[in-house]
């Protein structure tokens, strides 16, 4: 049994005016094995963030099933203990390092409270020790734990956000564009860190991003989303070096790199638009 099994997940956002409803997630199905890093690739409007939030329980679904660790996650939560238990299996790291931490607490306190809320430590000393371990894990110091978020850099805040996610010892961490707002050199450090954490702890990742290069570096499998539907999935190197679907080809063609020519992308887009109209999906 896979760690995560998503079947025919569907979500439509209804707009107030008579304007068309938006199908954010269109009958999406996929699975994530324990310890696997899966990339969810797409541009804006692809539905990738919505899928991530549905998995986290921050967004509801209109149809379909989401089973994580054998539990039906779309069923309404009954009571506090069930809510807390669900939090222990999946955690999330958000995109914006600016709002991701509670500003009025020191980062150490943020971690402590997460541990306490789940009764993961039974004494102040144990909390202190565990917080120290978490900080170590994300390569931050005890001195930094006494800082408030605004005193830390974007990269450091994201690392605390990762530590916060790991504090509850989840089996899956959902990273929603978690490195997109970081400088390139900082991004590299955080990606390194994520890879190391995965190697050491066997935690699974659902990495949501628009950046193909980052997905290729961190993930083993990739799902390509276009307008809420999965258009291609498979081994990440295969998908990115031998894309089959016209949209994946367009994405690959659009990614800057050596020998890249934007005007060829325009051609790729035109052939893609043709394909989509022919297939009736446009």
């Amino acid at each position, binding site marked *: 049994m896979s760690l995560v099994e998503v079947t025919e997940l569907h979500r439509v956002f209804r707009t107030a005016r008579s304007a068309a409803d938006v199908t954010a997630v269109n009958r999406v199905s996929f699975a994530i094995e324990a310890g696997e890093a899966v990339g969810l690739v797409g541009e804006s409007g692809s539905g990738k963030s919505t899928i991530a939030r549905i998995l*986290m*329980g*921050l967004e509801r679904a209109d149809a379909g099933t989401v089973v994580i660790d054998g539990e039906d996650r779309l069923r309404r939560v009954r009571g*506090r203990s069930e*809510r*807390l*238990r*669900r*939090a*222990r299996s*999946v*955690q*999330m790291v*958000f*995109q*914006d390092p600016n*709002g*991701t*931490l*509670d*500003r*009025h607490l020191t980062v150490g306190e943020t971690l402590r*409270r*997460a541990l306490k*809320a*789940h009764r993961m430590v039974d004494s102040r000393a144990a909390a202190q020790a565990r917080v120290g371990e978490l900080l170590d894990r994300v390569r931050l110091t005890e001195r930094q734990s006494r800082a*408030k978020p605004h005193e830390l850099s*974007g990269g450091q805040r994201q690392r605390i*956000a990762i530590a*916060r996610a790991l504090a*509850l010892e989840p089996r899956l961490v959902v990273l929603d564009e978690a490195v997109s*707002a*970081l*400088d390139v050199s900082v991004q590299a450090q955080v990606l390194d860190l994520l890879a190391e954490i995965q190697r050491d702890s066997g935690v699974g990742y659902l990495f949501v991003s628009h950046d193909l290069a980052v997905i290729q570096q961190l993930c083993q499998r990739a799902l390509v989303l276009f307008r809420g539907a999965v258009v291609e999935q498979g081994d990440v190197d295969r998908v990115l070096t031998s894309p089959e679907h016209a949209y994946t080809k367009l994405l690959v063609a659009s990614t800057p790199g050596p020998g890249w020519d934007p005007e060829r992308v325009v051609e790729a887009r035109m052939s893609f638009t043709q394909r989509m109209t022919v297939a009736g999906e446009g």
Partner: protein
Amino acid sequence: MTVLLAPRPRTRKKRGGSWGFRIAAGFLVLVAAASAVGPAVAPYALDEIDFAAIWSGPSAAHLLGTDQLGRDLFSRLLIGAGETLVGAVILLVLATVLGVAVGVLAAWRGGWLDAVLARITDVMFAFPGLLFVVLVIAVFGKGKWTAVVALSLAYAPVIAKYTRSLALSEIARPYIDAYRAQGLGGLTICLRGVIPNLLPALVGYLVVLFGGVLMSLATLSYLGFGAQPPSSEWGLMVQEGQPGIVQGHFLPTLVPGAAIAMVVVAVNIVGVRIADRLQARG
């Protein structure tokens, strides 16, 4: 992510008026002391009538002169300080507790609850505050405490509206989602996440509001709906001093009136500074 170094806006060279702050703060300390020990240190009693000395100007015996009944204005001022200010503070606290509860609840739950509360608030706004208070008093009778309760009900919607918009922007930040992802319940998140973070902005707002609150309470006493004679609540003092003005005796009205104005100004100066400090740290 480009961080554009924002040049400091052209500020005048003076050091933020720190001498003004010190004077205002010192004045408030004096007023607070008067509130606490006024009755004990006042040279004369509250209702010590002396027909031989009516409407006398400042002298060694009467520092600020006397009113139409020969009562010492300085003593009345000292003794009335507590009543005036404690009333205003309690009023503000009541209004804040009610307003914040309603505002945060509306922001958190949204939907129909928000709509209902918004409509109730709008009705309260549409109704002239003073009229509402007079109505309450007509039903429950005149008196200082009735005035305090009535005014706190009148001010609560104002605070609720402001709190709601502060709370809405707070709730939109990712750290709130992070708390939800940790399995914390709505009440916990509001109490430990939302409210502490909106406090700095709220305090700044309340400080400015305090001036208005003080004035409203004094106005009620002036109109005869609040404190009753022989109290020397400052608003009541202003009213009692009025008949003397046509005869050229200004002090009985001027002294309490100036005291009210000075307290309002001092609270603004000190409070705004405190609010700025809180903002910077938060």
